[in-house]
């Protein structure tokens, strides 16, 4: 337990000692990684009706999305939650957390669980449960389910993980749109770094929006009708995705002392706000965020061997991020390998930062860069994109970016740790 005395001691290095994933390209880390290496996309046509319950006038809403295919509806992930009904997004979090805890060797009854922190990033929350409740209340004039509050609350993923696995340290949710789970991992790393916590379970969880919100997204004119092609010449919008990525964070020394596996070190974290505009991405804010992360890690930009870009495939977002990378890397910017895994797993909003951090960490650990499907590249964006096949990751440092809607930015610098 952290005491005032412990808080004052020198900051500790933070390691990722366990990972867990639920994603549109596979449930479980090994399935996820296999799909990344094979450059296999989970984006597919999908149809939502105006409500997913019996109705007299169903109107299909066809769209493109990256959906999780291997978690059945109504799936209850753990016996510890007998009376507990979890919305999809919280279910994903619990499944991913179970894998991560097992991976880190934190089995049931482990004393460290009682003090572990849980910080989960979620931007939207229990949207299916929300639409379900709204339908009952407004279309049917019926009372909503007694567990509506518990299912819809945006911190349900964090508390679900806490309850499912008996994790009793600081537990909360962070929301900052697309940067939510990167912020969650960064904040959790800070708490371990400064001794406020000896173990943190962190990441993100999100399910695809339900009908109401999805139609609103579509009306915003930022979704692509035909695919996610980050940095491509004909990119025309993002594709929403869903899933959960959870990591276990511990002091590096503690993991080494017990002979545990280290995927990568969370070496640095940058967190900035543009303070300018809701929608227009700000190059300055992005650049400063990456610089802060590098400075925090004590790493020079010349050491970056891979950039896992935010790369949502919007016209302006990708252009702004490219300019920010040019400002950060100077002449090197056209030679540092870059990819955006959103092309495969979609933009999972609050969960996306965590999925990408995990892809980056495993890439560092195993020495490969996840590719993107080929597309006609935009000649104005001079980046060394990794296409179709994984490339060897030659170096020890990578940066993963999450530049959120509303101007909240997060960058994580991950570093390979020799075994």
């Amino acid at each position, binding site marked *: 337990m952290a005491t005032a005395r412990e808080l004052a001691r020198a900051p500790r290095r933070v390691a990722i000692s366990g990972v867990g994933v639920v994603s549109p390209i596979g449930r479980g880390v090994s399935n996820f990684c296999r799909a990344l290496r094979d450059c296999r996309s989970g984006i597919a046509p999908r149809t939502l009706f105006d409500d997913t319950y019996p109705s007299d006038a169903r109107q299909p809403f066809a769209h493109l999305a990256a959906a999780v295919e291997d978690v059945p509806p109504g799936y209850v992930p753990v016996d510890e939650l007998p009376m507990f009904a979890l919305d999809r997004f919280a279910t994903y979090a619990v499944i991913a957390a179970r894998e991560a805890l097992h991976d880190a060797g934190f089995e049931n009854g482990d004393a460290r669980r009682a003090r572990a922190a849980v910080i989960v990033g979620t931007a939207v929350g229990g949207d299916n449960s929300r639409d379900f409740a709204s339908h009952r209340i407004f279309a049917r004039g019926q009372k909503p389910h007694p567990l509506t509050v518990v299912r819809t609350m945006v911190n349900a993923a964090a508390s679900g993980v806490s309850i499912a696995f008996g994790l009793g340290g600081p537990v909360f949710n962070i929301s900052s749109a697309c940067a939510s789970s990167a912020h969650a991992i960064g904040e959790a790393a800070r708490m371990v770094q400064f001794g406020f916590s000896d173990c943190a379970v962190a990441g993100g969880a999100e399910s695809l929006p339900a009908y109401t919100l999805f139609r609103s997204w*579509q*009306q*915003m*004119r930022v979704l692509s009708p035909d695919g996610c092609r980050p940095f491509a010449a004909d990119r025309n919008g993002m594709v929403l995705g869903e899933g959960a990525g959870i990591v276990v964070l511990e002091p590096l020394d503690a993991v080494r002392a017990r002979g545990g596996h280290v995927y990568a070190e969370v070496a640095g974290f940058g967190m900035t706000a543009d303070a300018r*505009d*809701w*929608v*227009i991405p700000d190059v300055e804010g992005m650049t400063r965020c990456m610089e802060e992360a590098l400075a925090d890690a004590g790493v020079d930009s010349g050491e970056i061997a891979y950039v896992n870009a935010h790369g949502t495939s919007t016209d302006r977002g990708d252009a702004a991020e490219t300019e920010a990378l040019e400002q950060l890397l100077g002449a090197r910017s056209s030679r540092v390998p870059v990819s955006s895994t959103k092309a495969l797993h979609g933009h999972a909003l609050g969960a996306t930062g965590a999925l990408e951090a995990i892809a980056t960490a495993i890439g560092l650990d195993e020495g490969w860069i996840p590719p993107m499907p080929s597309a006609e590249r935009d000649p104005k964006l001079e980046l060394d994109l990794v296409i179709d096949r994984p490339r060897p990751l030659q170096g020890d440092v990578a940066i993963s970016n999450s530049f959120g809607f509303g101007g909240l930015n997060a960058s994580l610098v991950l570093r390979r740790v020799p075994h």
Partner: protein
Amino acid sequence: MNELEAIEQQIYDAIRKVKPSLQAIPLAPETRFENLGLESLERAIVVFELEDTYDLSILDESLDTFETIAEARDVVLMLLGRKPKRAEGAA
């Protein structure tokens, strides 16, 4: 007011719903959207309001690239012309 003017008025109303301060300035068919300082999201809401008022699909047809109010009016007019007309006297 003829049909063209009626549509123009709806467009003025939609714009002013998204940006009430534009009540104070005169709008005309020649007015360019970019001169009104409407950002992409605000434009998307104007499109939504027109789709809602007239029950049209402007977005799905990728017809939301108009630059002036007159062009927007013409898009609405064209789409209205495409809609199947109700039979006269139908209940």
